[in-house]
């Protein structure tokens, strides 16, 4: 196992840990807004860590750029969705 | 040892059973549509299993039989079309059930105009004798008057995708 592999394992493991934390928050927090918070914060960070961990394993430069793009788009999407869900909660739409 | 394809095949068998159960027994039409999608997905997985079994490995990379795979793609698109049509009908039915007094002459002349005064309270009775209770009928709001009903039409524009 090379140093790079060790680095990958470490970061991906950390990412998984954050994913678990986020899910725990989703399950245990009392209201919708805080659950949203837990998901948006922890999951984006977790995905970022996983992507960083995978970077040395990907082909350079195309694969790495694709991985980064995935993270970027996931950030963009989750931010927007977080906003929309937050607005819906404030308006009191039937979904809660 | 069980190969992965067989494992997915067994899973598909279970998913198909679940979907079938939902399609036949779920009382709400939208849930029937959902179960239909689940059932279809199980069928597609079975095609995928067949494709995987018929494939092999090329330079270490696994590949499947492209024929069933192409059939799945066609099937997915057709299933989507079916879902859209079913959902449109469900929504239209929900809308119409609240406004069923509003049935003046639409469509061609070939239709039979219903003598609405006597038929209005329960138009379904003479059209669906012997239907089991789980048939797709939305709640029938008998209290709706024609005036109230026609007012609700513009407001009731179906959904916007969230």
């Amino acid at each position, binding site marked *: 196992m090379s140093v790079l592999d060790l680095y990958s394992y470490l970061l991906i493991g950390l990412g998984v840990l954050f994913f678990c934390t986020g899910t725990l928050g989703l399950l245990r927090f009392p209201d919708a807004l805080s659950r949203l918070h837990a998901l948006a914060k922890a999951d984006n960070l977790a995905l970022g860590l996983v992507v960083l961990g995978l970077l040395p394993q990907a082909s350079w430069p195309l694969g790495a750029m694709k991985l980064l793009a995935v993270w970027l788009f996931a950030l963009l999407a989750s931010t927007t969705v977080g906003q929309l869900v937050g607005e819906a909660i404030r308006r009191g739409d039937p979904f809660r | 040892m069980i190969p992965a394809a067989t494992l997915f095949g067994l899973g598909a068998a279970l998913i198909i059973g679940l979907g079938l159960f939902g399609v036949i027994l779920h009382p709400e039409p939208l849930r029937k549509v959902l179960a239909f999608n689940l059932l279809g997905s199980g069928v597609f997985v079975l095609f995928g299993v067949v494709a995987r079994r018929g494939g092999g490995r090329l330079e270490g990379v696994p590949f499947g039989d492209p024929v069933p795979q192409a059939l799945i793609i066609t099937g997915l698109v057709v299933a989507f079309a079916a879902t859209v*049509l079913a959902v449109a009908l469900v929504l239209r039915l929900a809308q119409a059930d609240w406004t069923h007094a509003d049935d003046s002459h639409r469509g061609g002349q070939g239709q039979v105009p219903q003598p609405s005064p006597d038929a209005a309270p329960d138009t379904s009775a003479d059209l669906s004798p012997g239907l089991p209770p789980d048939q797709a009928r939305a709640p029938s709001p008998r209290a709706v008057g024609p005036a109230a009903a026609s007012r609700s039409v513009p407001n009731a524009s179906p959904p916007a995708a969230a």
Partner: protein
Amino acid sequence: MSFPILIIETLAGGRLLVLALVLPLLGALLAFSTGGRAARRIALVTALAGLVVAAAIALQLTSSAAALDYAFGGWAPPLGVSLRADGPAVMMLVTTALVIAATMVYAGVDFQPAAGQREGRSGLVFWTLLLALWAALNAIFLGQDLFNLFVALEILTFSAVPLVCLNGRAETIGAALRYLLFALLGSVLYLLGAGLIYGAYGLLDLGLLAARIQADAGAAPPALWLALGLMTAGLMAKTAIVPLHLWLPPAHSGAPAAASAVLSALVVKGAFFVLLRLWFDLVPVPAGWLLAQMQGALGAAAILLGGVMALRQTRLKLMVAYSTVAQIGYLFLIFPLAGADAAVAFITVGVALDAGTAALTGGLLQIVSHALAKAAMFLAAGRIAARLGHDRIDDLGGVGRAMPLTLLAFGLAGLSLMGLPPSGGFAAKWLLLRAAVETGQWWWSLAILLGGLLTAGYLFRVLATALREAPDDSAIADARAGTGPAAPGPALAILLLAGLSVLLGLVPLGYWELIQIGRPGLYQPLGMVP
């Protein structure tokens, strides 16, 4: 296993098959994209072309006495997809073209946009989807590939369902939704079966599959039997055989008459035709003896239940719809009868028939004569309802005086449904009856006879009422006073369909050898007795 990849295009006759499939498709796409009043004109032109193509295929088939084949793009099955026109397929092609053309004449200006409007909803939908439905039916009759047949069945569903609720009333939308759910369940079960068959054989082409299955007869894998069971169940839901018939009466009676005619006459037959292909082309029926007996039992139940329900209806269109449930029952008698000991032979009107051939011929004749008669009956019922403003059977008094041509057509169609000589329905039911007697399965003949009595019961009730004088205060008095001379087109179209369903019975039985063209091996050919 080795197959050729490319084959040379067959003779021009094969191109006709492509035209039969593609012309209505092209018509539908053009009708949709141009829209407006042009949609109807495009449909009529397509109908004319379609009739010519169907007739040309029939001519080609009878003159060459061999099935027509076509492989798309020159790619030979199993890699490619092919079409095949054998005797039964051509019978269905011609019947479909006739019924659709007559329906178009009947619909006439019904679905035209209102004055000052460029395009109306019902018009665009009706003309586009009628053509789509036609394309789907032709694809089903000609299809030789299990998956290609699935896509065709789906197009059939998608074009038939919106026609059911064309008038937009709540109860017809409910009926359409129920129909769609039944049809979709049927399709998905069919697709599942097709997948299992591919898993077992790696083939989808009916001809190649049949050869393989017969080659290893007796050692068929379990996948084949499960697949056939699932596909049969799915197709039976689409055919509306009892007890899967619940969707049919509300759907077929709620649709506008022009649509009802096509739905009842043709659409249910589409699914049934695939069932025939499976049980006669893919596996010979005797292989599934128990299943064939069960199918026959469902058929008998449908004949009786449909008849009784039709007798109890108070609305004309609903009665005609229940009559469809009953008439479909006769079709399912083919399975036990044609599957019986094929060595039993008998001689009838100058033709020697083995029981299996008699049953199959009778069944196909039943499909055709019922298609013509039921289309005529629904169209006649539609005209009566349009004229009277209602279709309550008890208040039909005076119709015989006011609309004699329409009632005549209704009566002629009824003749065929009851199975009275000399109609096509008589020939069909008589052949089935003989097959039942000759193969010692007398219980089926009981169902056939009882079914005929029930049919006579509900039809005579309508005819007797319609021939009574109208009470002065009835709608018919107003209707008679209010309407000017109607265009003769619709009435003549109905009369043509009804007349054909009767005349079918006068065609010499030997001529139905046509049915055997392109179906080698499974049955002994008909022999003419000098």
